[in-house]
């Protein structure tokens, strides 16, 4: 088997492989969820830092 045959065999072996219906919607839903989670994490971290800084300032 040369590389041309391998290329053709791999393309032939995957020619019937198609994504399931609804994959695009699932991906979009998952992506939005991940983005929201990331935003919440960042906001929470910033809030924690600000709170810690203000507590330290008040204490001193």
């Amino acid at each position: 088997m040369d590389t041309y045959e391998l290329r053709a065999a791999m393309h032939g072996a995957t020619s019937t492989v198609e994504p399931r219906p609804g994959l695009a919607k699932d991906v979009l839903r998952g992506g939005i969820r991940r983005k929201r989670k990331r935003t919440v994490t960042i906001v929470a971290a910033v809030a924690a830092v600000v709170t810690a800084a203000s507590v330290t300032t008040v204490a001193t």
Partner: protein
Amino acid sequence: MNDVGDFEQFVASRSAVLLRTAYLLCAGDRGAAEDMLQDVLERMYPKWRRIKGEPEAYARASLANRWRRRSRRVGESPLTSEAVHPLVHGPEGEVADRDQVVRALSELPERMRAVLVLRFFDDLSEADTARALGCGAGTVKSQTSRGLARLRELLADENIMNGSR
């Protein structure tokens, strides 16, 4: 068109090609390939606006990277041995021939398989393959050469076995 629309269009138009790469990387484990692709695309969404260059190249590199990390984890590694396609008997000889290469790929060590898939299925250059897999170009060259030799042996063995039936 807005970002969401662009991204959705990208997923709809390119997911079949990317799934085929994932399918070969996972040695014919369709479920693992779909999970991996969905994970990679979901991770791409928050970064969509910041991706420079071709999104497909980015997705392909992410897929290889995700697959590489996934393969290191025992619990999450593709079920290569269980995923091997069963032999197809009867008039579906053409299907059996197509599955032959997937079965042979599943017998190869993971990195060797990935090199062959990225080089000859996705037509990546040696440098791009090396970058996607996080190894040197020399490794890609040697793995390609050994991989092709091993694949020839495996396919020859399988042909002998099929011929002796």
